[in-house]
């Protein structure tokens, strides 16, 4: 997906993109992926996975994510917000 397309993405569209990444890269069961789900406790990601996820989001948005920004991310909703903030920059 190109950056121009993502620019126009709504919160829901970002959520769907994120869902695809989680399912493909981390084999997260679809039904577990909700906005409230905690990446580490509910979705069984670890901190090395979080780095991988950040890299994938960088590719998706075409913008650099600072490691510190991503450290505070806990839930799926946090990731969606982080991507929105990234696109608004």
């Amino acid at each position, binding site marked *: 997906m190109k950056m121009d397309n993502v620019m126009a993405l709504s919160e829901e569209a970002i959520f769907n993109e994120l869902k695809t990444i989680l399912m493909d*890269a*981390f*084999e997260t069961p679809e039904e577990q992926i909700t906005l409230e789900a905690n990446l580490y406790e509910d979705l069984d990601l*670890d*901190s*090395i*996975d979080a*780095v*991988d996820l950040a890299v994938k989001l960088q590719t998706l948005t075409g913008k650099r994510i600072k490691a510190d920004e991503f450290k505070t991310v806990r839930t799926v909703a946090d990731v969606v917000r982080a991507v929105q903030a990234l696109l608004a920059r």
Partner: protein
Amino acid sequence: MRKLNYLWRLVMTGLAFSLFSVGGLAITLLAFPVVRLLPGGRQRRRQRMQWVIHKMFGLFVGFMCTVGIMRLHLKNAEALSQARGVLVLANHPTLIDVVVMISLMPRSDCVVKAALWNSPFLGGVVRAAGYISNAKSSEELVDACVGALREGGALIIFPEGTRTQPGQPLRFLRGAAHIALGSDQPILPVVLTCDPPTLSKGRPWYDIPPRRFEYRLEVKSPLSVNQLIAPDLPDTLAVRRLTDALQTHFALELAVHGQPAN
């Protein structure tokens, strides 16, 4: 007579625990300065320190066997003493697993808790031995472990991350798989069992078993990553598949021993 034996083992278990602390202090005060003063670079010092720890743990295990707290059954243990540049993976039923393993390994690397790393008594020893502190980010920890393997170390990792929860199914964390995939070195599986269970998680030292425990250590055939998972998987999937494969492998080995993982 049984009661007397129980009391004897209780006192000796207490003594063993005290000896362990005293021994640690003795290494720090005596062996450590000697090793530091001997000629040779950092690498030689590390190896000597690892050897000193190996010998001390050997004495400790010997003490426990001699006084009748435990009986040790070894199978293919030579593979451990010759291990170089291999990732040694073991299940983790008891508090003494790493002690028994290192007592068989003149060279060994392992990951130690930050509390031990910074301990005024033993901190100097584990740092001089070149052991790896876990007080790092996961990425740095994996890198340090991969580095130790590439330098020819025999790195001991308990993939469960902590002692086995008695009565629970075996559950591996992904760290061991990350290290195996990062280093591309062979994996040496070590299967440990303790019967009757003792010194397991959440059990105080004085809660000793009704009889002397039989501690079994068996070194299995080396494994390679290629044997366990499909090639060319993306990293995030490879690490998951490998973790599952290793966990299944150990669960089967433990089932063969006729014991659940505790």
